[in-house]
């Protein structure tokens, strides 16, 4: 897991629904493919994605081997207060990637 692209506004009005799109680089090896020798290529996928808004979990997704490589996850939340929105991806190798963006909410 190397890097992620985040698409969300930097500012929003209180009560506004904001759309968040995340894209992360990952091979998402299914565990069903084989090498030429016949050996199974071990599964190595991102299994959990979470989004926290000012510390509170607002979105969580579990991922499975049918997901494409470099998964894009889009969802929305309601702007309530200014604070960091953080994103965490965890894969089968235990590697965790965390990114955070500050959202400013106006009345």
């Amino acid at each position: 897991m190397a890097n992620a692209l985040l698409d969300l506004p930097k500012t929003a009005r209180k009560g506004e629904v904001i759309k968040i799109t995340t894209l992360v680089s990952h091979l998402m090896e299914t565990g069903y493919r084989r090498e030429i020798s016949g050996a199974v290529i071990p599964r190595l996928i991102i299994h959990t994605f979470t989004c926290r808004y000012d510390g509170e979990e607002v979105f969580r997704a579990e991922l499975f081997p049918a997901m494409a490589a470099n998964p894009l996850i889009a969802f929305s939340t309601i702007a309530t207060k200014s604070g960091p929105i953080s994103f965490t991806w965890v894969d089968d190798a235990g590697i965790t990637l965390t990114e955070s963006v500050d959202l400013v909410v106006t009345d």
Partner: protein
Amino acid sequence: MLRLRIILTFLLGVVPGGAITRADDIAPKDRRSGFDMMSAETQAMQKNDLANPAMLWVREGEALWSTPPEGGGQACSGCHGEARISMKGVAARYPVFDASAGTAIDLAGKIQQCQVERQKASPWPRESKPLLSMSSYVGLQSRGTSIVPAHYKGTTEAASRGKALFNRRVGQLNLSCANCHDDNWGQKLGSAVIPQGHPTGYPIYRLEWQGMGSLQRRMRNCMTGVRAEPYAYGAPEWIELELYLMQRAAGLTLETPAVRP
């Protein structure tokens, strides 16, 4: 690949190779990027830099640009400064004749040459993640500019060899690149629309690959599709084909990094 092979076998059952012939070369006014033949969804993915997965590679290339290589050499930025300025328009005119190589060289080959000769480092292998990342970062600096193939001594002959390769029937299915890309573009091969085969967006993020690949990888796919033995990565034949493809695409806009089905 298997998909293309199955489709081809099916296609040949219906249309004997070369039976439909529409034209020779594509007139400049009829030139169209593969982008125009994609679904609206795939076009939208390419157009949005925060949804185009190729941008993940671009970001990696951007980081490598200012990272010194192992062995104490200078980073690319040490000599070239800001890529936004120094690399603008470069990808739109490659391959070029390279005096120190004594032959035509493509952009990836030029990057490798700078690694060896200027950075005294070992070059990233063809199709490796860092080389694709750097090629797409350098390529991005020419996005939106028109393709202007180099017309120097040394590339003219190579480009005409490329044209001959493009028109030569190869493989068990005995088809030339031109049979599909000049004569039958816009038609369907199974579920895929046959594009004109322009090198406007390379390296590309191909949905079928679920990853990034070079023009050479794309052309390999077409060659194995007609059951021909593809040339090795970096072989002169690929550079010759690319030279011809760039001439054939002159005037089209560079899209790097593109998304393709």
